[in-house]
């Protein structure tokens, strides 16, 4: 079965090493066999998809026909280069070099292909021999595949491979000459840390997998590549460590990815929406990150990463709520500091969710809760404010969201200016104009800052939305409303699952062994086990009794 899968085009192109020539019938047969054997096996085997694509058929023996077919298929696109080389003794042979300009490393093509083909073909006698020679000797590129299928050939070319067709042979060679302009590996902009690796994913899948491979140098790291999107043909890779990740979950990921039937994938966000467990939840059940160290850490816990070509954001499943409030730094900083920071994060998540609603509830329903001087202070500030507190809170919150959105979208240079103008001028002016009370401004600002303290932004967005609902609840029925809202939220969160793992996992259901990494992060020498519900395949993470101690013969002996 393994062979069947790999020999069809389901596997990663770079591992495509089949010596037998495949014609279309073989492929069809294989395909149906595969389907029979593995009903849920993935992606490209979708019948509708293949049918829609099939423009060609087998390659022709005639070079001219091939050339026309290729050009037609690309609709004479200007970036398609079809170079016709006349080589061999007396220029008897015609070699077509086909590639897409901009996707290939041109130096590689000219030095390792065209130059060598022009120089070393003097002894060619017949096309078959020329083809073998070309394949086995001349092409100085590490990864060469052959295909007899026009579609397959075109797919390769469209991905940046260089296709070579020789006359009178109904097969073509594709050499991996991919090379294009790509962003440098930089520090991730959305998840900055103080301590820890400074590299982040880039838009190229291959680079990203290499970043992972460099962190997990073990053959058990599996990277399965798939193609999603009937037109965009985006490469999507599943990475996991076999033996740590639950095979059932891996299969579930494969299935869900296989179910995707869209024409294009531009960002992992689309994949996220297409495979997540709770599409209508305000909270994401899939963690996204652009940090390779975070992904590697998740892999070591037995989780699975989904990398998508064209975006630096990788997805991690199964994700739990606590992961969203965790930064890789937590694991590198000293344990007390890390734990304290984590507590602050939980606090700020809660603050960003409930602070405005608490303000509204206290000022409109439960005035007895605050000490007298404070309540008089608030009352004097509310003096002359025309709106009820709930309207005031909603107004300021909306204003704040607008400011934030404006600040994010504007060019870097203008952004801060907007924030300053917005924050200072509008806030101050609104206060002076008596539209809002100063304490409201304080509340909104504190809420805003608290919401920035969440390491993963997508979960902060959830809190951002819910905050408005909480304010409305608090405004209508006070603290009871807040409690009701929180209870509904708790019900929702505990009923969520991410790829079979309860979303609130270490908290509900309570997994005592995992409290070591919940609010407090225990020192590394005490983190013996992986998360129980994710990494149950191989629970023990490390050796016991690793607490560092000073050498037994300490004291004066060492000073000698």
């Amino acid at each position, binding site marked *: 079965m393994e062979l069947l899968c790999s020999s069809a085009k389901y596997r990663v192109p770079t591992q495509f090493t089949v010596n037998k020539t495949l014609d279309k019938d073989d492929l069809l047969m294989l395909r149906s066999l595969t389907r029979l054997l593995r009903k849920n096996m993935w992606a490209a085997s979708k019948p509708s998809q293949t049918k829609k694509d099939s423009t060609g058929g087998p390659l022709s023996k005639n070079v001219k026909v091939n050339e026309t077919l290729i050009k037609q298929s690309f609709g004479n696109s200007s970036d398609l280069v079809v170079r016709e080389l006349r080589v061999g003794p007396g220029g008897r042979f015609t070699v077509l070099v086909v590639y897409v300009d901009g996707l290939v490393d041109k130096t590689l093509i000219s030095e390792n292909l065209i130059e060598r083909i022009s120089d070393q073909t003097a002894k060619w006698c017949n096309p078959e021999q020329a083809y073998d020679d070309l394949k086995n000797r001349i092409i100085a590129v590490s990864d060469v595949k052959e295909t007899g299928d026009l579609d397959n050939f075109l797919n390769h070319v469209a991905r940046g491979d260089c296709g070579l067709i020789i006359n009178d042979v109904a097969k073509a060679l594709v050499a991996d000459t991919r090379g294009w302009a790509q962003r440098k590996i930089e520090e991730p902009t959305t998840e900055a840390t103080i301590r820890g690796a400074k590299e982040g994913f880039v838009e190229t899948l291959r680079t990203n997998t290499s970043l992972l491979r460099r962190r997990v140098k073990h053959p058990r790291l599996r990277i399965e590549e798939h193609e999603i999107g009937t037109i965009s043909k985006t490469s999507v890779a599943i990475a996991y460590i076999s033996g740590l990740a639950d095979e059932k979950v891996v299969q579930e990921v494969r299935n869900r990815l296989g179910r995707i039937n869209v024409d294009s994938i531009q960002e992992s966000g689309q994949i996220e929406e297409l495979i997540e467990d709770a599409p209508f939840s305000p909270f994401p059940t899939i963690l996204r990150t652009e940090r390779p160290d975070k992904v590697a850490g998740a892999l070591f816990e037995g989780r699975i990463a989904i990398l998508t070509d064209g975006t630096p954001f990788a997805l991690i499943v199964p994700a739990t709520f606590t992961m969203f409030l965790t930064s890789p730094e937590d694991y590198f900083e000293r344990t007390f500091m890390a734990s304290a920071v984590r507590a602050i994060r939980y606090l700020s998540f809660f603050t960003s969710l409930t602070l405005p609603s608490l303000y509204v509830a206290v000022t409109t329903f439960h005035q007895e809760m605050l000490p007298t001087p404070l309540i008089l202070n608030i009352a004097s500030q509310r003096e002359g404010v025309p709106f009820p507190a709930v309207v005031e809170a909603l107004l300021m919150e909306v204003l704040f969201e607008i400011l934030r959105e404006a600040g994010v979208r504007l060019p870097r240079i203008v952004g801060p200016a907007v924030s300053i103008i917005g924050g200072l001028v509008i806030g101050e002016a609104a206060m002076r104009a008596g539209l809002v009370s100063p304490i409201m401004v304080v509340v909104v600002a504190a809420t805003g800052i608290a919401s920035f303290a969440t390491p993963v932004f997508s979960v902060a967005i959830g809190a951002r939305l819910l905050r408005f609902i909480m304010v409305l609840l608090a405004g209508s029925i006070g*603290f009871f409303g807040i409690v009701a809202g929180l209870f509904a939220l708790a019900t929702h969160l505990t009923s969520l699952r991410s790829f079979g793992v309860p979303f609130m996992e270490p908290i509900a259901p309570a997994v005592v062994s995992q409290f070591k990494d919940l609010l407090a992060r225990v020192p590394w020498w005490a983190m013996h086990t992986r998360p129980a519900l994710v990494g149950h395949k191989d629970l023990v993470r490390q050796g016991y009794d690793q607490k560092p101690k000073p050498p037994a013969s300490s004291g004066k002996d060492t000073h000698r």
Partner: protein
Amino acid sequence: METEGGRISGSQLLALLVLTRLVPVTIEFPLVTGIEVPQDAWISSLVGTVLSIPPVLLMVHLSLKYPDKTIIEYSQLLLGKFFGKIIGFVLVWYWLSIAATMLRSVGDAYTTAVMPETPILAFILTVGFLSANAARTGLEVVGRLGEVNMLVVLLFGFLTLTLPYKVMNFENLLPVIAKGIRPIMLPTGTAISFFVQFIILGMVVPYLNNPQTLTKSSLGAIAISGFMMTAFTVALIAVFGPTVSSLMLPAFSLGRMISIGEFLERIEIIPMGAWTITVAITLAFFLWASAVAIAQLLGLRRFQALIYPLAAISVAFSILFFESFLDLELYFKEVWVPYSLTLTLGITIILYVASLIRGRSSASEKVIGSCHRNG
């Protein structure tokens, strides 16, 4: 096909039982007993806790005889279809009446103490809706909610107990049993009558990860909730002295006494919120039990569809049952104890005796039973 697919752990069951038990404690315990000698209330709660261990152990023992059947199923097995179903319906009625009572006490507590102008329906409906929502997601989620919230509730309970330390006077607890045993007998009965609500564990046993934890969970729940109840009573007597018997919402009043250094004042609404959550979870638990029970009685495959109608019925009950808060308190004082005690203990004893007779008459019963269960 199973009506409920989820499984809960022993600690989740413990949490649910504790919360079930804490509801009456935290809001109305010393009052509902109608105690004549207020300073002895804590004794009756302590004695009640201890005395409730045998009946609960009997329930546990009975349930463990049929670890993969709910009380609804094995009562039919033991007493035959007809009588078994009658017992099943009686239990459903019992749970629904508890649900209605709890809903009503939430509503009355809020309208009495916090927001007198708000119609009681606003609270009842909200809590009913929330718990129906939770119950519909199944036992698993209810169990998890219980687990998380038990910690929150215990924390707030503990804070409410300890923060009014300034106004506590432990001399109020003396003299102990000055007027003899008689006056504390009825309150002790009340204390036991709240523990026999544990009959609900007959619904949970088949859905436990490990049924063997049942004994531990039930005893743990008795211990924790008994401790909380006694501690609450002690704190209440220390703070309020003889006036405790006049308090409508004793625990809530305790929250009103909190005043710490000009900074924390009258945070009664926070324990009140924790209590509301407790009620919501307990209510979800009872709704779930009633729905599953009905589903099993009538041979339905899905209980989820029944949750909302049952919630609607208990909301209607909560309005119908009691005309005023006085009615509710009188119900607890006069009707609840004999009603609850005879019903639950009666059912337990009948079933237990039946199981003994069955066990003697045919030793092979269990084998047949287990085959049937597996089928």
